[in-house]
């Protein structure tokens, strides 16, 4: 009897879960999400898929230009973003830096994080015009938001004992970072970077929809022309490339012993 009491959820938890369940039911009723609607949708879906196949292989040049542009954007944005995140992450680590500095660094990172890449891409298209440059800048901002934040957290989680020993040797602050901090966070950092590259590859296929370069533009216009066969080709290509980079990043992680 006593054990059942010990594991009983608190009153707040029970009220909250009942409230959540009630809201889900309410939302379902409001959105007219019924079985009949779902079955009707299935028929549309089948029609779409039938129009997608066979994939259109004739527009190879549009596909090639768009995909290479996307890849280049992703790579450049990742590089730029990582280069900027490195110092920002270090400056944002509360175990290494004075408080005002961490606030500033964390503020910059938080601003970069707060907006979705597509919204940032629209802003940059308005600011610097259509094309890959806007896309690269948008993806860079997103990379700073992600890598900067998680890198700062990784630095905050390092063992202070190891750093203390390096400090005791009379090392300068820069040498302290190089021998005491970098070895402890390198593996995490490589992991973050490969994840960000992966993420940028996916996002680089999307920012084109708002005119910021890459395959997204071609994809969007194919949708608008109801050219589903070409849409299918583009989607398949994107999937293949994402899977290939996945394999590549696994290799990179192995090399760095993550």
């Amino acid at each position, binding site marked *: 009897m006593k054990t059942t009491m010990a594991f009983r959820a608190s009153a707040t938890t029970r009220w909250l879960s009942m409230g959540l369940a009630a809201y889900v039911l309410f939302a379902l009723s409001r959105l007219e999400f019924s079985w009949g609607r779902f079955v009707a949708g299935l028929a549309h879906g089948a029609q779409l898929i039938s129009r997608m196949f066979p994939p259109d292989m004739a527009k190879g040049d549009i596909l090639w230009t768009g995909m290479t542009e996307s890849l280049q954007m992703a790579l450049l944005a990742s590089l730029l973003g990582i280069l900027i995140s490195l110092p920002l992450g270090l400056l944002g680590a509360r175990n290494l830096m004075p408080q005002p500095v961490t606030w500033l660094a964390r503020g910059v990172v938080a601003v970069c994080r707060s907006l979705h890449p597509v919204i940032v891409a629209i802003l940059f298209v308005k600011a610097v015009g259509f094309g890959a440059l806007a896309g690269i800048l948008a993806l860079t901002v997103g990379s700073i938001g992600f890598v900067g934040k998680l890198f700062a957290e990784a630095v905050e989680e390092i063992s202070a004992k190891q750093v*203390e*020993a390096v400090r005791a*040797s*009379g090392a300068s602050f820069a*040498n302290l970072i190089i*021998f005491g901090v970098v*070895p402890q966070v390198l593996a995490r950092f490589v992991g973050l970077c490969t994840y960000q590259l992966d993420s940028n590859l996916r996002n680089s296929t999307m920012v084109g929809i708002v005119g910021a370069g890459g395959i997204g533009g071609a994809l969007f216009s194919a949708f608008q022309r109801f050219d589903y066969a070409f849409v299918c080709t583009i989607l398949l290509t994107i999937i293949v490339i994402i899977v290939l980079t996945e394999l590549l990043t696994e290799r990179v992680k192995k090399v760095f012993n993550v």
Partner: protein
Amino acid sequence: MAHALEITGLVKEYTSGQPVLKGIDLSVTGAGLTAIIGPSGTGKSTLLRCINRLIDPTQGSVVLRSNNGSVDMCLVRGRALRESRRRIGMVFQEYNLVERLTVMENLLTGRLGYVGAWAAWRRRFTPRDFERAFGLLATVGLADFVDQRADALSGGQRQRVGIARALMQEPDLLLADEPTSSLDPKTSAEIMALLREQGRAAQVPVLVNIHDVALARRYADRIVGMSGGKIVYDGDGEGLSDTMLKNIYGGQTWLS
């Protein structure tokens, strides 16, 4: 000129009005192993860390004298502090090796006070540093472990690397904070012997915080007993009577 450490009126308060160290006066001259014993929380670690300024003391002076000059560790700041720290080697209870670096890199950490950042990044230390590192690894019996990562070593091996790293600094003074607390009895004795030998070989004083009174008696030339933030005993192992131990640690059931 013999190496010497002179601590006068050292006070450390973590919270104002509640001193952990209540005016420590201690002077250590020449080679020899000084063991500092005392109950947990009495400020032994704080004392050691005030010497190389990993902790800033509240009051007092810690003067280090050698052929390399004389410096009050309590007064130096910035670059001068870092340059003074190079003269003090430290060995830690949990070894504090950089786990993901190799044994060689951990040893070279002892030379970080002497190289610029760009050289440190590329691991460009002087040939003399590498020679010394190989020599020390042979001395501590780890010549075959040069390229091993520190996290692949056993406790005893790690502490040997820790000692070699401290000796890489060619220190004027060697500090060891509970260097044997995480080790088995046999390895503990070996580590103490190594500290004593190396201190004598380099002709520098060795200060060791230690919980094991028997080990302290066996290896120390001098024993300093601390209790309640003060030094209550200073002498050799012989003079450390049961009454004295009771005085240092309190109680007496543990003695019988």
